[in-house]
């Protein structure tokens, strides 16, 4: 009988003292793996899909250009525009933009600048080839077309 009673007395509670630690671990994971968004994107961005993606190693060498139809078509019209940092720029301003971005980088890394073109899939090649020509003139020849991984069914 005494044996029986002892069992009934056993603690039923699950120790929750480690819960904050678990949550903190999750928190740190997200803090480390994510990057705060630098600028809000004002152009439509439906990124095309591809299979043969490669990953870039050094994030500090990558500068982004966003190309697509503006989200506020009533102000900016329907023609695709180029967004650099927080503003729309013209193709002729790209050389200036590249040299400004290069100036922000460490001296020995400047020549390794990589331009990441985030292009909406509806954008036309005409505009993009104009951008590429300007990048060639600005001596920023490393280019990455951002794509999503195509999921095979």
């Amino acid at each position: 009988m005494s044996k029986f009673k002892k069992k009934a007395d056993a603690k039923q509670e699950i120790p929750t003292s480690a819960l904050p630690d678990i949550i903190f671990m999750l928190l740190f994971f997200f803090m480390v793996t994510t990057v705060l968004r630098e600028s809000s994107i004002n152009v439509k961005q439906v990124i095309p899909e591809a299979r043969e993606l490669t990953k870039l190693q050094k994030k500090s060498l990558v500068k982004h250009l966003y190309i697509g139809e503006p989200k506020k078509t009533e102000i900016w019209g329907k023609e695709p525009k180029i967004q650099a940092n927080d503003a729309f720029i013209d193709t002729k301003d790209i050389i200036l933009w590249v040299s400004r971005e290069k100036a922000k980088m460490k001296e020995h890394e400047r020549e390794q600048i990589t331009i990441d073109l985030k292009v909406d899939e509806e954008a036309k090649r005409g505009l993009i080839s104009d951008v590429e020509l300007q990048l060639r003139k600005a001596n920023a020849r490393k280019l990455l077309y951002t794509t999503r991984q195509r999921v095979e069914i």
Partner: protein
Amino acid sequence: MPKRARQTPEINSSSMADIAFLLLIFFLVTTTIANDKGLFLLLPPDPDQLEDLDIKIPERNLFKIQINSADRLLVENEPLTDTDELKGMIREFVLNNGRDPESSDNPQKAIVSLKTDRGTTQKKFIEVLDQIKGAYHDIYAGRAGVSNKKWRELAADHTDPEDDRLYEMGRGVLPDGKPEIPMNISIAEPTKIGG
């Protein structure tokens, strides 16, 4: 007085989890996982500084892909509807090594030329570029004896000596230090026929 001294100074930590949760949710909402993946391309140098060299490339060493403003494909002057067929065609073209007199002399001379119209959408362009890249990646991966995915990881980062060995095996090294199978992709100035 003694009663007070006996009190254990304990901070109530039951709400710690809630605080941490709040922070976690904040970071979940405000951040985006960085997506720096895509198709890498090296542009040719500034056209103004290039000397006007008129190099004649024999027709057999060029694999011509053209896309018009309606996103239709013309491969080696013949229409093609299924883009997925390109990969195999490019592979055969690059590894021809002079067997077929209509196809390339050797992989060093083989050039894949991609010409679009100003009205071609980026979607189609990426689709075709993906096929070209895929053909080369498959060749490299096959030679190095690794999977295509592993090869792409190697190409991005081959600082490890073992990775570097595989990388060199895939691309092959000629006596003059150039790769045996270079990825010669030429992207021509778009035409202005279509809107």
